[in-house]
């Protein structure tokens, strides 16, 4: 075991909610809940203002709404979170080459891997942890909590000990003493279920847990977990910080507020999920070969089906049809007795960092170029209108131009086309709460809410004062979605000089 607490755990404070508050001035200091907003959604992150009402991660959003009806309930904007996360991970890699990102908002780093051997004393570690914490704040405008210990377990528990904006360094040799008074829930991996079982044996603190024998724990929790918990309660954790844990797959899934009953609805949903997962795949700079579709029926029967393509790709024109080919089989298998699909997911694995060029896509690209040439006069008018604005918006508007019909696109699913953006059906544009938008006259803002054919937008940006709201028809052509990653990039404070 190392003598110096040189393993650090950096954990962003209420990350998703904090990014939302950073980008949406009107929400600062107010309860914000990010997660699935529908009937069956669960909370991903609650801001500290919302936690006062007893709202926490993994709680059904419906419960959260009862506890705090006035909080802002927002859909996650992964594009933005990913952008900020990149900055944090980049900063950590400047400190030490040994960085293990655990998720978008947390990472372990090993200071012993620093070129100069890292800090030699507890005080040096504390100074460096403080400096990292300050730099995260400078570069992202958000706070992080840092924990330092001689093992990943202690570092992780320490980062959580004084959240938010905490900095706890547990000196080598004092781990046991420090862990003992903590509730068992604080230990890594102890959730409500394990805590309940431990309570039956009278163990609510780590010290009480430590009084239990290994065989008692194994009897209660099974061999693997019981044995591991026995060691964890003694601060024994020899897991190494492993750099750049390779991303193995990218996936998204949704639980639907009402069971999806018919094939067109299921196919439309899978198309939407596939589009999302392809976007995430591209954002991570990856391509993939294997597409997996997951379907859960009304009675929780869960089925996955997968297909491997000839070559890795990030082309939605290949990946989305693959997901659609799989979904009928998966959905049928998941709905043996009871009709209805409650959850769908799409994953991409077999990741690579290259994409085999595709002739069919290339041909379609050529065809599109020709169309463009044909449509010259109208395009000019459009371009002029965009130029007249001070800050031309990115024009990645799905369906702004009617997608050209492509032979081979099945006609069975009117809601989507296989080879192009979802066409402009007025109900096809989903104005999800929290999403970034731009109005042709009123500028950038975000969706505060939508329903009954109307969408309410608050016009403000990360660096403006809290803004006013405006209400529009959901198919108002002046309103267009904006890539959240772009908003996040613009919101990053200018890099401090001297690093």
């Amino acid at each position, binding site marked *: 075991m190392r003598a110096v607490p040189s393993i650090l755990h950096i954990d962003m404070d209420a990350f998703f909610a904090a990014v939302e508050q950073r980008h949406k001035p009107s929400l600062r200091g107010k309860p914000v809940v990010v997660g699935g907003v529908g009937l069956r959604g669960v909370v991903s992150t609650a801001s500290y203002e919302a936690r006062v009402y007893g709202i926490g991660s993994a709680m059904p959003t419906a419960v959260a709404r009862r506890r705090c009806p006035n909080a802002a309930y927002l859909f996650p904007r992964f594009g933005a979170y990913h952008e900020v996360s990149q900055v944090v991970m980049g900063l950590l890699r400047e400190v030490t080459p040994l960085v293990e990102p655990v998720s978008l908002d947390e990472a372990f780093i090993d200071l012993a891997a620093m070129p100069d051997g890292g800090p030699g004393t507890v005080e040096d570690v504390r100074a460096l942890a403080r400096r990292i914490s300050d730099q995260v704040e400078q570069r992202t405008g958000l706070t992080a909590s840092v924990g330092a210990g001689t093992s990943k377990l202690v570092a992780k528990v320490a980062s959580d000990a004084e959240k938010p904006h905490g900095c706890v360094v547990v000196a080598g040799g004092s781990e046991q003493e420090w862990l003992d008074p903590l509730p068992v829930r604080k230990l890594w991996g102890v959730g409500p279920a394990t805590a309940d079982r431990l309570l039956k044996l009278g163990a609510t603190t780590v010290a009480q847990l430590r009084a239990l024998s290994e065989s008692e724990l194994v009897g209660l929790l099974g061999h693997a977990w019981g044995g591991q918990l026995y060691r964890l309660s003694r601060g024994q954790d020899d897991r190494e910080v492993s750099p750049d844990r390779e991303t193995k797959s990218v996936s998204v899934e949704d639980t639907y507020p009402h069971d999806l009953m018919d094939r067109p609805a299921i196919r439309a949903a899978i198309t939407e999920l596939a589009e999302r997962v392809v976007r995430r795949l591209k954002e991570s700079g990856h391509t993939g070969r294997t597409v997996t579709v997951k379907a859960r029926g009304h009675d929780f029967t869960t089925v996955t089906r997968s297909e491997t393509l*000839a070559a890795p790709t990030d082309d939605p024109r290949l990946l989305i049809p693959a997901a659609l080919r799989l979904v009928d089989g998966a959905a049928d298998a998941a709905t043996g007795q009871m009709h209805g699909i409650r959850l769908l997911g799409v994953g991409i694995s077999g990741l690579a*960092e*290259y994409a*085999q*060029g595709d002739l*069919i896509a*290339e041909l379609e690209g050529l065809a599109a170029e020709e169309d463009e040439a044909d449509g010259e006069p109208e395009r000019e008018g459009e371009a002029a209108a965009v130029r007249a604005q001070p800050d031309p918006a990115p024009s990645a508007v799905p369906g702004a131009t009617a997608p050209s019909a492509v*032979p081979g696109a099945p006609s069975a699913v009117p809601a989507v086309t296989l080879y192009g953006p979802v066409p402009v059906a007025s109900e096809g544009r989903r104005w999800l709460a929290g999403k970034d938008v731009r109005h042709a006259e009123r500028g950038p803002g975000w969706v505060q809410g939508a329903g009954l054919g109307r969408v309410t937008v608050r016009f403000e940006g990360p660096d403006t004062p809290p803004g006013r709201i405006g209400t529009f028809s959901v198919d108002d052509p002046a309103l267009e979605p904006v890539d959240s990653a772009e908003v996040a990039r613009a919101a990053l404070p200018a890099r401090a000089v001297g690093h």
Partner: protein
Amino acid sequence: MKFRVERDVLAEAVAWTAKSLPARPPAPVLAGLLLSAIGEELVISGFDYEVSSRSQLPAQVEEAGTVLVSGKLLADIARALPNRPVEFSTDGPKVQLVCGSSRFTLQTMPVEEYPALPDMPKAAGSIAAGTFAAAVAQVAVAAGKDDTLPFLTGVRVEINGDTLRLVATDRYRLAVREILWKPEIADLDAVALVPAKTLHEIARSLTGGEFVTLALADTEAEAGQGLIGIEASGKRTTTRLLEGEFIKYNSIFPAEFTGDAVIETSALIEAVKRVALVAERNTPVRLSFSTGQVTLEAGTGDEARASETMDAVFEGEDISLAFNPGYLLEGLGALEAPYTQLSYTTSTKPAVLTGRPAADADHDPAYRYLVMPIRLTG
């Protein structure tokens, strides 16, 4: 029924016909070969509703007749027989087969349950058997192997007067071969999409004779009725055409190229094979061209890496192109030319391989192998 045939002729004909029998016959009769003895000949036929094969061979027929026997068993027996004349005769519901001192009794299946073979369509033209087989092999290499998009598993056969053009693509590469042939009608204009695997096997199995004749059923007829027939020296086969629109492949070929490089084909094949040893699961091989040379590299980061530099006739801006080594090797192999010309526009646009008889000779555009490069995203 009673007839006598030469053992070698029989064995060859049975083996050829039995090749098209289905591995898992949907109905028992489809596992059979139909033997019809009439006049001076024996006709052996097999059919699985997709592909039909029929071979004709001389026979001394004592009593005309038709029987249906297990194709696989007959092929196994014919191959193993001693080199003596073979005599077939029916004996009630059985067939007696006598060859020298060997004697077999085979069961028969009901002839009336066997489906009628499709008629051979009208002949469209003919071509030297070896030339045809070589051309088919050159394009079949680029055809798709999985049937997600069925048209990708086909070879498009385009007939335009005395030009026969074969095209195939699996959406990552595309091969086009043009050959001259002898059409029945001078201004014949026809198109057919033939399953690549079947066409490849048929063309290869018909190189025994001098010429093959292609026959096309009117493809404008009812959907699903399209048929191509191929005939050579007593053997004829028909196969159902694939349906579906082929891609408009002509526009995929860049109108003009930024540049090209000329490299000795066999040396390049060897170099790609060596470098690709570190390219697991067909990860890309990168080709970097600079004046007078090309450097091949594979592998990235901490993984195993390899590189090799070789001579190339190249002038112009340095360029780097990445390819699936398998696709590259199959194209280089199919060129069958001493020198390879690689023409490109940019690192993300298709590159085209053509052959040159010598480094300073003109390239031969009759065979073109287009390959989509790999784009690096990391």
